[in-house]
């Protein structure tokens, strides 16, 4: 399971980077989303995958009885998902505005702020 997830994360990062390096604005956003999902999966994987175990230890047991699920990665991923939800919706609006103002979705055409003036 870990092995498959590790390969999947690699694919997410690689395809995300590939999409970001395209010239189209929409592909740029898709790339960012893919990398974000890759990072979330990575946190999930590095929190050690445990199957069907509760994260909460009963109050009466003084020590950790046996293996238990780590709740922190889930909290982290949830936070990261919430943040990326906000960022992505902003990104979509921004790209839409930029497209209607600059009138192109080719990133190579958007170089007026870099030009010497």
């Amino acid at each position: 399971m870990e092995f498959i997830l590790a390969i999947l994360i690699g694919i997410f990062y690689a395809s995300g980077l590939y999409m970001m390096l395209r010239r189209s604005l929409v592909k740029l956003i898709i790339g960012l989303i893919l990398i974000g999902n890759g990072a979330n999966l990575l946190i999930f994987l590095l929190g050690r995958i445990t199957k069907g175990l509760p994260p909460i230890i009963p109050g009466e047991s003084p020590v950790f009885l046996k293996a238990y699920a780590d709740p922190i990665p889930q909290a982290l991923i949830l936070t990261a998902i919430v943040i990326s939800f906000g960022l992505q919706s902003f990104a979509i609006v921004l790209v839409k505005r930029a497209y209607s103002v600059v009138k192109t979705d080719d990133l190579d055409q958007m170089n007026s702020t870099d030009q010497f003036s």
Partner: protein
Amino acid sequence: MKTIILKTASNYLLPLLMLFSFFILLRGHYLPGGGFVGGLIAAIAFVLHAFANGLENTKHLIRIHPGFLMPVGLALAFTSGLAPIFYAGLPFMTGIWFPEPLSVIGMVGSALFFDIGVYLVVIGVSLTIIFTITESA
């Protein structure tokens, strides 16, 4: 979208989804759920209504501007965080609880008010975003 099936269904689904979102909000302290998910479900209820009946009707249904929910929710969450400092001299955001459980809701504490704040903010933010995108499309 003018389909009569969706239109009829959305009229029944709106109150059901709202109820479900409250349920999710209230069970969120110990079980899966909470303010964020509840807020998203409530927002989806309104978005579905907007798909079926048009944006104007949904806005008329909500009456207030959804953006106004953001400061209200933030203020609620903020005060629930501040409450332990002023009531008990405990650090920011420490959970303080009423001693007796209420019927139906169960134990009520500052965490519940924080979650309600999150719920309102999420509804406000998602509806503002979606309405803005829909209007400019």
